[in-house]
């Protein structure tokens, strides 16, 4: 027989059954002496009962407890003296407590087992009256003159609690994900409607301010024809009104740019995704070709290392790299030609690409904000609506990927992208 600590529950039960039934072959040479005697009179059996991690309780045909081991004492909070000789129903809450005698009689009469030989989850009751969930396996032992039942008990409160907690966590997580998706959809709808409806009055502001410009032109022509010389009128027509109109139009143009950005961003959330393995070498080659003119003009250089493939939507991933390369060229240090390096490596199931430049870099405190919508670090220095990185981040999110930046002001920036690897498809497909 193996050491008790290493036995599985099933092995332990079988061993105990054998011992109780007095089977010599598995219980050892001394087993003969326990035949027909009290189950815990055998020292070996007693050792098993004493050291078992499981609670083990033996009852007779009437439900009277014959033995209870220390583990079961601990589980129920009773000492053996309080339980032995009592009906085992004392360890159960109502209604099992009242019904147990009937269950047992029913089994003895019909042989139809509910728990015996099966094992199931039931509720136990401790000495202090608290109920708790437990695993109960009951085996029947037939002795020469009577039958005994051995119950193996395990307190599963903690497991149940953990299970309940996990279920709650999972439900909450699912609810959160659902409400987040709803909120996202709502936000996109709001952005869409807002940008759409806000654009409508802009048509009027810009249209009619141009009408006013034309009206001024008409007035000027009229004055010239009538040969009216008036410095004050000329001041209004040539300076005051055009200046005001210029500010109005500049304001409108700015709002229009922002709204177009909003619209573009909201469209992104609705765009269908067509995920497929992408040949990134091909994609980057096409991108760098399209930037050739800009690169030559500024004396910049773009180097692309051999890149592993990823799983993505070709248009959207193209957009991300296009935005990153644009930025790398736009935010170059005027004191030196831009050197841009694109590389990539496999990391687990993901590919991590990097776009490194030797540009002006981003101060540490600004780094987290570069992905914010309409956030621009140098609004005066370069054109753009401040949406490139926001869109890149949104695209990465939709791909279950990630984008982050490492940068040293004056040295340059490196943007990292993590995307699912194209290899995954080959493996699973």
């Amino acid at each position, binding site marked *: 027989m193996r050491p008790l600590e290493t036995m599985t529950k099933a092995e332990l039960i079988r061993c105990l059954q054998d011992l109780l039934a007095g089977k010599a072959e598995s219980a050892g040479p001394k087993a003969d002496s326990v035949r027909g005697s009290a189950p815990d009179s055998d020292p070996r059996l007693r050792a098993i009962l004493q050291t078992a991690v499981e609670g083990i309780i033996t009852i007779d045909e009437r439900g009277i407890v014959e033995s209870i081991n220390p583990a079961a004492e601990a589980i129920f909070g009773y000492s053996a003296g309080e339980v032995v000789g009592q009906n085992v129903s004392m360890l159960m809450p109502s209604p099992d407590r009242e019904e147990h005698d009937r269950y047992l009689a029913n089994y003895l009469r019909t042989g139809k087992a509910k728990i015996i030989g099966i094992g199931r989850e039931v509720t136990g009751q401790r000495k202090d009256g608290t109920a708790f969930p437990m695993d109960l396996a009951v085996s029947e032992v037939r002795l020469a003159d009577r039958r005994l039942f051995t119950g193996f008990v395990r307190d599963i409160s903690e497991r149940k609690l953990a299970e309940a907690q996990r279920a709650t966590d999972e439900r909450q997580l699912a609810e959160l994900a659902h409400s987040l998706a709803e909120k996202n959809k709502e936000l996109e709808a709001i952005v*869409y409607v807002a*940008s*759409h*409806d806000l*654009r*409508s*009055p*802009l*048509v*009027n502001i*810009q*249209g*009619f*301010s*141009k*009408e006013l410009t034309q009206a001024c032109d008409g007035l000027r022509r009229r004055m010239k024809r009538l040969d009216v010389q008036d410095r004050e009128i000329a001041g209004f027509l040539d300076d005051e009104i055009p200046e005001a109109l210029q500010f109005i139009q500049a304001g*409108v*143009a700015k709002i*229009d740019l922002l709204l177009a950005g909003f*619209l573009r961003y909201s*469209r992104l959330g*609705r765009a269908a995704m067509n995920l497929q393995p992408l040949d990134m070498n091909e994609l980057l080659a096409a991108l760098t070709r399209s930037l050739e003119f800009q690169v030559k003009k500024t004396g910049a250089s773009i180097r692309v290392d051999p890149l592993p493939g990823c799983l993505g939507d070709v248009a959207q991933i193209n957009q991300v790299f296009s935005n990153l390369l644009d930025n790398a060229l736009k935010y170059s240090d005027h004191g030196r030609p831009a050197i841009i390096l694109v590389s990539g490596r496999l990391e687990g199931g993901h590919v991590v690409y990097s776009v490194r430049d030797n540009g002006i870099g981003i101060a540490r405190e600004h780094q987290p904000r570069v992905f914010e919508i309409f956030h621009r670090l140098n609004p005066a220095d370069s054109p753009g609506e401040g949406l490139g990185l926001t869109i890149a981040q949104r695209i990465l999110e939709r791909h279950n990927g990630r984008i982050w930046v490492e940068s040293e002001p004056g040295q340059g920036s490196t943007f990292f992208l993590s995307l699912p690897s194209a290899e995954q498809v080959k493996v699973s497909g």
Partner: protein
Amino acid sequence: MNATRVEILIAEDDAGHARLIEKNLARAGLHNHITRFDNGQAVLDFLLCRGPGPHRTDDTPYLLLLDIRMPQVDGVQVLRLLKEHPELRKMPVIVLTTTDDPREVERCHAIGCGSYIVKPVDYDKFAEAIESLGLFISLVKVPELDSKP
């Protein structure tokens, strides 16, 4: 058929937009009669000869400039009803949209409107669009509607 006889219908809830369209049509040299409706229901009543208001006449060719986003009966609904009508389905319709959102453009195409112009905020582009529309209007062969429903 004489293009100057074409009557232009503008269904546009924004009075400013309608006025800008009128001004630009005039500037583009178009002096066709223009009737403005400020919602989809009004233009439907006119075309389908319903309600007490003025109704279309049999011998006038019409061209409709239709705004998509209008309260209550919007441009899409108007277009759908027109396309279901045995006579009115022949009437040329140009949809005016505030954005070039693909969803909107697709919706128009789906119910059989081939031409649309985006209302740009940029006045020059807007004028250009209307101007080319003006050209279009003067050249387009507008079929005469045969009879009232």
